[in-house]
């Protein structure tokens, strides 16, 4: 063994290198205040290791970036831990950077002969900030996407070449695949390589000049190994522990279910870094905020607008940074050094105050809070959808979400329908209607109670009663429906129908819709209802079929004639509703009486979302099922 080492030393001279590295002299003894540089190096090494492993599972494109990170976080073993370490170590690095920097300034370690090393340090700082900025985009979730979009659009403010710079950074006129490939290459290739290079120079130059001893040494000199190494190691361990605490932050909240989560491989649900909803370029995210350590810049920018915005975005930050390069010269005078210390302290305090103000303003802003909440519920929803489907298709997760009635149905209803209809008394999203309703309340449309109401009190306020104040095509609707054929018929015949007969005909209509949310159909009752629908009873002025045509479900022949009342074939089913919405004024629906606008310009996707949402037809995770009547569980109607 010894011979081998001797041979190796002979060929490489490794002992001398090792000795130089380990037995560097530390005048005045090892001290805790020297650890910051080492902790920074340590965090960088951690980022390199975890980063390369993450790289093995990450796929940079707009349909796969979020999806692959999702897979890392929730599906791959220890993915949440790996991602958590990478994410929180990055944050720790920023804090350590600030500490290291302040220590250098206060100790005067930037002054001659260490100017060059100070400059190298400033460059390293830029590189670390660059890594943070590029990394924030990579998961391609709402917050990363919108925050980075804002940041890159600032670069377009650079005079003259700004727009070109922005185009180069973004990889084209708009955000997308090439933004990701470029950011990823910067994040995993260019910036780390530069960082390694500058870090090597930084450490080399540092070794050349040695440690800066501020106060005259009280203790005896020592060497780097083992005393300072020990202190450095303990400090790094401290950093690692902080990172772990952040990763497991939610543990106390979930302590009771941890065992089960671990067994099911679902620790990623509660631990590690947050993954927001997938980026949706069509949905402007109100809470686009950079990472916390850039918040002060974000806040600073708020005080500049219009023509002077470029000062807040570029000139002033650049001047502040540029000034730091001059510090070694200023620090030659005693007063200059003091000035430098005050300058940096003021900067830090200023940044802290701005950060505080930014956080406070956000907390007071309901729209931001709502956007954050919305993004959070979307990120939980998308998880349910992916688990249900067993994975995403090539169109990606955002497409899955966009086709989810539970997520977008209410919004669409509020936009398109709530100008006339209500939904359980509100506009679908829970907000009150802006103007009084002029059409029925569709909250329970097609369910037993609702149909029953339509058959017993069609002129009531939840049905046609609301239409009296409406006007359509410039013509007031007035009593067109409240005294229309249906309402008149019911008024004349209400006394002549038994409750049992009404139940039966309602069950018959429920059977036509064949809807999962209505639960199982009582087929005996429905058969009686069919009989009543066709033949009525002896006391009625006419039967339903005398006005309504229908082809009962499972039969081949249509009863009655189209023309005088809405066709009830497949009533309240998705197909019926879709057909109705496309053209409510069709002869087989409301014909000349119609007072509802046609939705013929709605895309198929939007139509589908509204229809499925109204019919409560969306995926719910198995634990939550909510059929409105007591009945055997049914297959969800997908």
């Amino acid at each position, binding site marked *: 063994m010894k011979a081998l080492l001797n041979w190796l030393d002979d060929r490489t001279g490794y002992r001398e290198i090792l000795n130089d590295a380990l037995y560097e002299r530390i005048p005045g003894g090892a001290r805790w205040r020297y650890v910051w540089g080492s902790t920074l190096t340590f965090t960088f090494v951690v980022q390199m290791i975890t980063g390369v492993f993450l790289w093995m599972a990450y796929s940079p494109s707009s349909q796969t970036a979020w999806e692959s990170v999702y897979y890392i976080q929730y599906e*791959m073993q220890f993915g949440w831990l*790996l991602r958590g370490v990478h994410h929180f170590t990055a944050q720790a690095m920023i804090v350590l950077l600030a500490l290291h920097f302040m220590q250098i300034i206060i100790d005067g370690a930037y002054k001659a002969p260490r100017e060059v090393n100070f400059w190298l340090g400033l460059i390293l700082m830029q590189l670390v900030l660059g890594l943070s900025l590029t990394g924030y985009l990579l998961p391609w979730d709402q917050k990363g996407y919108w925050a980075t979009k804002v940041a890159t659009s600032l670069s377009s403010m650079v005079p003259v070449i700004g727009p070109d710079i922005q185009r180069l950074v973004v990889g084209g006129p708009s955000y997308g695949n090439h933004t990701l490939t470029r950011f990823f290459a910067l994040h995993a290739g260019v910036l780390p390589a530069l960082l390694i290079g500058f870090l090597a120079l930084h450490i080399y130059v540092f070794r050349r000049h040695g440690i800066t001893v501020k106060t005259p040494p009280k203790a005896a000199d020592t060497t780097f190994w083992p005393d300072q190494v020990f202190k450095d190691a303990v400090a790094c361990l401290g950093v690692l522990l902080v990172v772990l605490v952040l990763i497991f932050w939610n543990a106390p909240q979930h302590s009771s279910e941890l065992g089960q989560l671990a067994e099911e491989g679902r620790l990623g649900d509660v631990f590690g870094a947050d993954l927001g909803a997938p980026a949706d370029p069509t949905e402007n995210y109100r809470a686009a905020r950079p990472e916390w350590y850039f918040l002060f810049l974000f806040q600073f920018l708020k005080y500049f607008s219009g023509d002077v915005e470029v000062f807040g975005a570029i000139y002033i930050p650049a001047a502040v940074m540029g000034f730091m390069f001059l510090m070694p010269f200023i620090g030659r005078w005693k007063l200059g050094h003091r000035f430098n210390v005050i300058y940096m302290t003021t900067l830090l305090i200023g940044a802290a105050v701005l950060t505080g103000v930014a956080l406070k303003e956000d907390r007071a802003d309901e729209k931001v809070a709502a956007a954050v909440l919305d993004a959070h519920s979307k990120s939980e929803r998308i998880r349910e959808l992916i688990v249900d489907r067993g994975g995403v298709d090539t169109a990606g997760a955002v497409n899955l979400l966009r086709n989810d009635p539970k997520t977008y149905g209410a919004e669409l209803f509020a936009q398109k329908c709530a100008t006339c209809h209500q939904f359980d008394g509100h506009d679908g999203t829970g907000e009150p209607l802006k103007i009084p309703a002029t059409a029925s309340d569709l909250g329970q449309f097609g369910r037993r109670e609702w149909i029953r109401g339509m058959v017993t009190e069609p002129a009531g306020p939840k049905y046609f009663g609301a239409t009296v104040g409406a006007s359509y095509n410039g013509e007031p609707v007035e009593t067109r429906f409240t005294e229309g054929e249906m309402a008149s018929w019911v008024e004349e015949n209400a006394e002549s129908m038994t409750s049992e007969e009404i139940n039966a005909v309602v069950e018959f209509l429920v059977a036509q819709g064949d809807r999962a949310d209505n639960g199982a159909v009582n087929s005996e009752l429905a058969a009686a209802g069919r009989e009543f629908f066709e033949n009525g009873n002896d006391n009625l002025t006419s039967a339903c079929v005398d006005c309504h045509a229908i082809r009962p479900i499972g039969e081949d022949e249509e009863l009655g004639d189209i023309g005088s009342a809405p066709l009830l074939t497949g009533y309240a089913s998705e197909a019926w509703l879709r057909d109705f919405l496309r053209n409510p004024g069709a002869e087989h629906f409301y014909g000349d009486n119609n007072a509802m606008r046609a939705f013929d310009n709605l895309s198929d996707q939007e139509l589908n979302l509204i229809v499925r949402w109204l019919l409560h037809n969306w995926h719910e995770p198995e634990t939550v099922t909510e059929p409105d009547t007591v009945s055997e569980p049914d297959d969800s109607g997908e």
Partner: protein
Amino acid sequence: MTADSNPTETQETAPVPPRRSFLTKFLSVVIGGVLVVFPFATGLAFFLDPLRSRRKQGEEEVAPEFEGFIKVTELEELPVSEEPHRYKVIDDRVDAWNMFLQQPVGTVYLLRSGEQDILAFNADCPHATCPVSFDSDRKLYQCPCHNSSFHPTGDIANPDSPAARGLDRLEVKIRNDNEVWIKFQNFLPGKAEQIPVT
């Protein structure tokens, strides 16, 4: 790193060796080890994820005796004949975070020799997984890559075949008197016995 080697050149003032030097050295090495091992071990555990067997999600529920079986065709479409018919096997395909519903996942040959007698073969050659095809003139399965040929029964037909076993037979079940369900599996190539790839 040997902790006890001494600096070769003495500096201006030889540093005083700290008293608890051994403990310091020992702890430094231990902590240093933890610091490097932790991120690396996390990464390694993550890297080994593919070795874990994953249960398939989103699978339709079928009667227990048909679990793992896929419907390929119906008896009506599969005449009794001396010649096998080729079918695509359609199943949901998982690719990491992607789930592709109803995709071709493989090819099989079905040979129906009697009312209920069906032989099913995976069309991948057991030698090196090239897709074999049936040559009606020679009444043999022919592999395009290394010249293996197989009888309609799946047995090796040419003595110089590099294949270590015959074509891979798959389990067949008839469901509802008409539907042909097979247990589609791939097997490790080059082995004399059938070892399923999971």
